[in-house]
């Protein structure tokens, strides 16, 4: 896993005002959308606008993702060919299946060669939004060494399944757990579907909690107002961070003394407990961009 993204904020690709202000929202990643947020007769304009934005602005520390149109449409390939020249960090491939991922991989390979970019420096996130996509997710992951993660598209998935999307999200349980488990198995990120009611922050908080409990590493957002709840939900609690720092520090001391197991505040600490503590600190490091583990005394 390259970097941990708690949030990915969708920005409509043909809206100059939103694009130029995108970095003020502090999303971990920005998704400039050329697909659903852009009408058919403005696809060409959005592609050029996002290209010029990538050329002009530094969106750091947010990661720049571009959602292209599906690769089996007249716009999809052109999107990748044009946008790729401006080196986005990641291409989000919609309606992902193994063929689409393979096509995107090959196009990016040519772009990197032509433009003298570092090989495989443009990464891919697969947007899985169909029953077929969920079932062949392993092949999707294996379809390209550029795949850094999966984003679940809940709206399209439930439409494909001919089931109703509810605020509770019970209908997404299987897709979420399957994709989260798969991503964990391959060391990739699993980004949960956006919560579509932007006025229901309580519902969003519940939805984030659900996603975290099932193993999601981040969540997409469709409105900047959703970011705070998402960030809060994906960050370990301060008490957990403090505990983890203490475990790691004491573990290092115990190791020097030749102990494999020790007690901290009356509770046993062994290798799995240490691994969990280390993971919490790494997660915080990834989010805050600071080294915590080496600084523990």
């Amino acid at each position, binding site marked *: 896993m390259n970097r941990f993204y708690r949030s990915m904020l969708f920005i409509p690709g043909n809206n100059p*005002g939103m694009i*130029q202000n995108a970095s003020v929202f502090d999303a971990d990643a920005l998704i400039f959308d050329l697909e659903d947020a852009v009408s058919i007769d403005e696809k060409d304009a959005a592609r*050029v*606008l996002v290209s*010029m934005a990538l050329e002009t602005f530094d969106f750091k520390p947010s990661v720049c993702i571009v959602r292209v149109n599906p690769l089996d449409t007249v716009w999809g390939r052109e999107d990748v060919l044009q946008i790729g020249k401006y080196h986005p960090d990641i291409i989000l491939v919609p309606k992902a299946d193994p063929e689409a991922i393979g096509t995107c991989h090959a196009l990016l390979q040519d772009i990197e060669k032509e433009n003298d970019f570092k090989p495989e420096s443009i990464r891919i996130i697969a947007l899985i939004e169909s029953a077929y996509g969920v079932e062949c997710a392993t092949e999707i992951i294996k379809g390209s060494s550029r795949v850094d993660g999966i984003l679940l598209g809940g709206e399209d998935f439930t439409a494909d399944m001919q089931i109703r999307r509810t605020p509770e999200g019970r209908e997404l349980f299987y897709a979420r757990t399957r994709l989260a488990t798969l991503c964990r198995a391959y060391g990739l990120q699993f980004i949960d579907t956006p919560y579509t009611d932007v006025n229901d922050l309580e519902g969003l908080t519940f939805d984030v909690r659900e996603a975290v409990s099932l193993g999601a590493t981040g969540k997409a957002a469709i409105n900047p107002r959703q970011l705070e709840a998402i960030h809060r939900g994906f960050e370990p609690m301060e008490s957990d961070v403090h505990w983890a720092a203490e475990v790691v520090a004491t573990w290092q001391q115990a190791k020097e003394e030749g102990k494999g197991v020790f007690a901290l505040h009356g509770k046993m600490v062994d290798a799995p407990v240490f691994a969990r503590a280390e993971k919490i600190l790494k997660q915080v490091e990834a989010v805050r961009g600071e080294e915590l583990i080496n600084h523990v005394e």
Partner: protein
Amino acid sequence: MIIQNPSCAGAMESNDILIMLHPSEDGVQIQLESKVKKQFGRRIESVIKTTLEQAGVTSTVVIARDKGALDYTIKARVITAVNRSLGGGSYE
């Protein structure tokens, strides 16, 4: 290259600019409307002119209605209008 087909790109919305290209054989002429023309008019015209030059356009009448667009948007809308003109034009 002379613009043969009328075309347009962009919108009359804040932070955007509407660029309309018309056929002409008298070089590049720009008619700019902008509330910030006094402050940024020369800059906006310069971005339009440079972008047209880079696209190889030597002759057209540009009608630009600016609503506070930054350079990257002006550039993008001019490129799109040129592409649309080359693709047959779309004037609505």
